[in-house]
């Protein structure tokens, strides 16, 4: 049921993703809080939807998301989760994703959505954790 909810959320967030990349935040959140295989499928599907919704090069977002999610799944066991570490990891992950996307499709880099996304990450994750797990941050 909760997986369906994530997919519904993906559809809700998709039209607003150009202004603030909430899908990346959602994927990052899933990597740390849900089943690894689901996180991979979800990132694949999210990439596919983004590629179809903002058609530039079919497959590029799928590839970037799948690789980044798999990387995150691999490295997450090497650091201890806390609020600031998560934020820094997200910032690095997101900036790398933007950089790779920029190289892959020569898309112009828009600073404002990047700043908004990084700024919004922490409050959104904290609120989600509080709602779902009754704690601000899972460690």
């Amino acid at each position, binding site marked *: 049921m909760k997986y369906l909810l994530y997919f519904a959320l993906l*559809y809700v967030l*998709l039209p607003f993703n150009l202004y603030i990349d909430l899908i990346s935040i959602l994927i990052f959140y899933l990597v740390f809080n849900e089943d690894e295989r689901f996180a991979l499928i979800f990132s*694949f599907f999210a990439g596919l939807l983004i*590629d*179809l*919704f903002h058609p530039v*090069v*079919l497959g590029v977002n*799928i590839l970037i998301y*799948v690789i980044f999610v798999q990387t995150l799944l691999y490295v997450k066991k090497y650091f201890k989760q806390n609020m600031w570490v998560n934020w820094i990891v997200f910032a690095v992950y997101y900036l790398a994703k933007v950089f790779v996307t920029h190289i892959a499709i020569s898309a112009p880099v828009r600073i404002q959505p990047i700043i908004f996304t990084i700024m919004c990450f922490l409050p959104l994750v904290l609120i989600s954790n509080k709602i779902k797990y009754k704690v601000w941050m899972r460690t």
Partner: protein
Amino acid sequence: MSRRQLAFFFSLLLISITFLSLGEHTKLTISTRLSPILLFPVTTITKLLDFLSVSSTRITELETMVNRLRLENAEWKKIILLDTTDYQTTEYRLQKAQIIGRDPSNINSYLYINIGEKEGVRIDQPVLSIDGLIGKIRYVGNNYTIVETIEKHGFAASALDAKTGIHGIVKNHGNLVFDFVRIDDEINIGDSVYTSGMSDIFPEGILIGTVKKIDESDDQFFKPVYLKPSVRINRLNYVYVVYGKENN
């Protein structure tokens, strides 16, 4: 990381690389086929939002248009009614005049209008709008005229209640009061009060106002009846000066 997980990752990776390596035409075909299915919820919601946004803009435009047409309609009605009055009443003639000034000390007590002696205006001629009585001419200049309105303290006109036929005098004592209504006279809130014609100044049948309050009085004979003027003087731009037989 389990082998299974790794295999899963590589299969997804393979699919995405396959997508990337396809030719432009194939990519376009796949996109065209997949989009309506996978993006159906998003496109539906986006279309709905667009529709709502366009609808709300359109509603605002239409509301503005309706308001403008209402105002225009009201203006046309006034003109038609005045023309009809002019046509039907051979006894009186109306001349339209523009308000060019107001008394700054009491903005609704005196109006300055753009006709004067040249147009044959005389002191005490009644002035009205289609909504009712405005007042009478107080001073006539060469090319302007001062109108004393019903909102001037001390203004008076003979009047009658159209429903019950009670006669009295409408006076401005700070409020517009229908004087000399006897304690036992039947008069109701909402009744319209018109000029009675029992004076040399105002012809009969011009609406002055409606009864808004009837006070209990200690007076043995009369009860104070308060009127709401039919004309909002501060909203006027034009008035009509009434010419009687002698003015014609």
